[in-house]
Structure formats: C-alpha cells, structure tokens
C-alpha cells in the first residue's frame, strides 16, 4: 500500500518506518516542506514530485539504518526551488538517490549523503536539463566518515544545456575520511548536438518534438522503478505535463 502525502495539507512530516516495506509519495504542492524520516530495516521507495509552480523550499533530513531506501525527486516544474537534503546512512543500509531537474527557473540544491558506519552504500544519480533562463546551483556531497570501513559512495551528475541559461554550476564533491572504501564521482555536461537534431528532423520529427524526445531521455522516469505504484499513471502524467509546458 502506498502512502501519499500532500505538503499543502501538512508541510511538516515526521516519518518513522521500522521493519516495513512501503512506498512514500510526497507531492510538494505547498511553498515549504520540512520532511524528516527515520527508516530502519525496511525496503522503502520515496518519491518527491514537485507540483507547485511558484516556489518550493524543501528541507529533508533522513536517517537510514539497515535496509534499502530509494529516493527519487522529480522536478519538472516552473518553480523556483530551494532544496537542502541531509541523509545519514547507518548499519549496512543502502541508499539509491535519483534526482531529475528540468531547469527553466532558479534551482538551488544542496545534497549531503553521509556514510556514518561501516558497510553502508550510497549511490546518487543527478540529471538536469537546463533551458533558456534556467539557473541551477547543485552541490552534491558524498561523505564517508572515519571508521565507516568498506563503505561505498558513488555519484554521477549529468547535464544537458539548450538555449541560453543564466547560470549552471554543478559540483560533485567527495569527502573521504576512511581509506578502506570505494568512492567515485562523475560529471558530464553537454549541449544538444545540431547533427542529432537534424537526424531526428530528417525522420519527420519537428524541432519541438525532437527536443522533447532528447530532454525526455535525460529526465524520463524509469518505469521499472514505479511499476508497482498505485500512483504510477498520475506521476507519469505530471511528468509528461511538466515536459510539455516547459518545452515548446
């Protein structure tokens, strides 16, 4: 059973999940959201869907002990967004974090994921498409503290720039205090290739649809991830609408 929350109904959420597998779908439809969670020995998927088109200020604080958490944030909104996330991972837990941003306004995002004890794992995957007038500052830090032996911290960020964005600053950071670990970070950034656009056009796909196709390839929600959600269709239609409203 999925748990569904709307921050317009309650913008401070404190979630304790122990020994339970569940999906949390959090619609960010109010200007502020203050979310803390404590997840122990559970298999949990958390989905943040930004619905407000004006302004979002999200503070997220998470503790994960044991189990596996997959955290996905989809921001295909026209909102100015401010996000501060601090997630601490304990006791052999695994965190997979997937964030997707379509940037046409100001996005200021800080993510800190910290391996607190040994044998913990963090994998972060950020994708951003930055269009005309878009402004993004994304600082993503993976930290492994001393004695968190055999921990893993990987992160990759990729961005696609099209048009004339105001500002693009994406910083992957690794802070490693322990030597017996596995860690990496990767960043790629590129523009839409004119030859790729031509290729798509040459098959009858006009410029707007071609751009949508290319942007969608960056921001597409992995259907495997949401296949079991009751909210699957709703989430897909929100993402589709976000794409259509922002492109063309």
């Amino acid at each position, binding site marked *: 059973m999925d748990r569904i929350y709307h921050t317009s109904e309650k913008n401070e959420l404190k979630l304790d999940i122990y020994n339970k597998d569940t999906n949390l779908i959090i619609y960010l439809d109010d200007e502020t959201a203050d979310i803390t969670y404590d997840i122990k020995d559970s298999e949990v998927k958390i989905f943040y869907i930004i619905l407000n088109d004006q302004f979002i200020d999200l503070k997220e604080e998470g503790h994960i002990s044991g189990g596996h958490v997959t955290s996905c944030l989809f921001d295909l909104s026209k909102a100015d967004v401010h996000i501060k996330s601090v997630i601490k991972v304990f006791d052999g837990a695994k965190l997979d974090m997937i964030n997707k941003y379509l940037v046409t306004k100001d996005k200021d995002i800080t993510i800190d994921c910290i391996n607190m004890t040994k044998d913990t794992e963090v994998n972060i995957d950020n994708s951003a498409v930055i269009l005309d007038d878009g402004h993004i500052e994304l600082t993503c830090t993976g930290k492994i503290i001393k004695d968190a032996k055999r921990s893993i911290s990987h992160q990759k960020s990729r961005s696609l720039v099209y048009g004339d964005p105001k500002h693009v600053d994406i910083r992957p950071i690794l802070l490693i205090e322990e030597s017996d670990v596995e860690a990496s970070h990767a960043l790629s950034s590129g523009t839409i*290739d*004119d*030859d*790729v656009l*031509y*290729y*798509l*056009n*040459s*098959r*009858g*796909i*006009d*410029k707007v*649809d071609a751009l949508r*196709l*290319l942007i*969608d*390839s*960056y921001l*597409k929600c992995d259907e495997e991830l949401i296949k079991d959600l009751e909210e699957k269709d709703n989430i897909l239609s929100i993402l589709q609408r976000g794409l259509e409203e922002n492109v063309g």
Partner: protein
Amino acid sequence: MANTLKIKDLHVSVDDKEILKGVSLIVNEGEVHALMGPNGNGKSTLLQTIMGHPKYIVTKGSIYFNDQDVLAMTVDQRAKVGLFLGMQNPQEISGVTNSDFLKAAINARRETPISLFAFYKEMEGNIKKLKMKDDLAHRFVNDGFSGGEKKRNEILQMMVLKPKIAMLDEIDSGLDVDAIKLVADSILEAKEKENMGLIIVSHYDRFFSIIKPTHAHVIVDGKIVVEGDNELVEKIDSDGYDWLYQELQIHPRVEEKPLVFSLGTCALNPRS
C-alpha cells in the same frame, strides 16, 4: 499523380566553397537511380542538400517534389512529404530508444497516434526481416551499434516510414556479403510494395547487381558528367573512372583529408 523529384541546375556551397556546380536530375516513383563517382565529388552533398542539412547552402537552382518547392520546406516537412535519407554515418542518440524514436517519427505523419499493437507488429515484422536483434526496440538509437547494425537500422526506419523517394548513402558499407544481400532484397521488397523511387550511392557492384538500377549518373567535380543505365554501372565496376576522365577531358576533385595534429601528451612516464 506519380511522385516525382525534380532537381534543376543545383549549385551548393559549403563554407563558401562550391561543391555542386549545376546538377539536374529527375527521379520518378518506381525508378532506381545509381549515383556514382569518386569520393569527395558531390554525391553525399546532393543527398544531404535534398534532405535539407543546414550546412549545405543552395546558391542557385531548384528542387521540387510533386510541384512542391522542397527548398522552402524545413527538414521535417521534407520527410513528411515523403523524402527519406538513409545516412552514411547515422547519429547515435543515447537515452532515446528505437521504439520511442520510431513512434515519434510515425506519429509525426499521423493525425492520431499509432496504437501500440500496430506499432510493434510493424516494427517486429521488419526487425525479423532484417535479422536484427530482438531487443532492438528497447536499445538506444544506434548507441553501441556496429557499422552494419547502424545501416540495417536505417533500412528498418525506411521500411517503417514508407517514404515515396528514398535516398541511400553508402548504405551497404559496413555490411558483410550475406547482409548486403539481405539489405538489398529488403530495399527491393519495400520499393515494390510502396512503388518507391530510389537514389542510391554505392561503390560496390555486388549491391547494384542485386538492386539493378534503372538509371545511373556519375558525378565528377560537382557535375553529372555521364548518365546511363545498369550497363554504365557495370562498365564503371570493371573499368573504373579513368576512361571517363580521358574521354571527357575532366579531372576529379581530390578529396581533402582533414589535418591531423597532436595536442601534446597529457602525462609523461617518469621512468622513460
């Protein structure tokens, strides 16, 4: 009305350098035109110009398809009226699956989107015909494909999109002997089915011996210098182009090779 592509006195420049110097050509539906000539003399330029690549600037002349001014159309409009270019170096588009790509291309030509059932039936039938891998629909467009797979994928797109005039630029390069036969047979089958007109650039007689062009044109230094039929293709295959240069007192343009230079090394082995 029969589908006809008419090219008249076409002059094309790239980076202020004239590549095509007055090409005229008429291609009707059902005809197969072989476009031959040494490398770097204008064959691909002609095809890319017809399709509308922005790099190629038409300085003079006209292209009409069924009395519609092709040069006034955007690239996607040209495709929608029925022109298709199977490219020599197809683009790799990581992240976009073949099925999403082809669905978008099909739907661009339709009022209402194609049903999933009809789409997969069409796609899978052609994938089997071209003996491509079953997972093609879910793979990213040309991403990690071998040279041969890319060329087959171009033909797959042609078969699914059913153009009226298909231009195939060295579509046989990168294919092994069996694949050349398979691809050529598939092109012929599609041509018969749709009464498609074809303009084919190839350097291989093996390919033309299956396709059997009804017309042949040789481009040298941006001009069509001789025209004929399948016999001309066979003569060029056996004798090359030298007899033409001597007979017509012409010289081919020598293909300019890009300059290769070192940017230097980024690391030195301290032990060396």
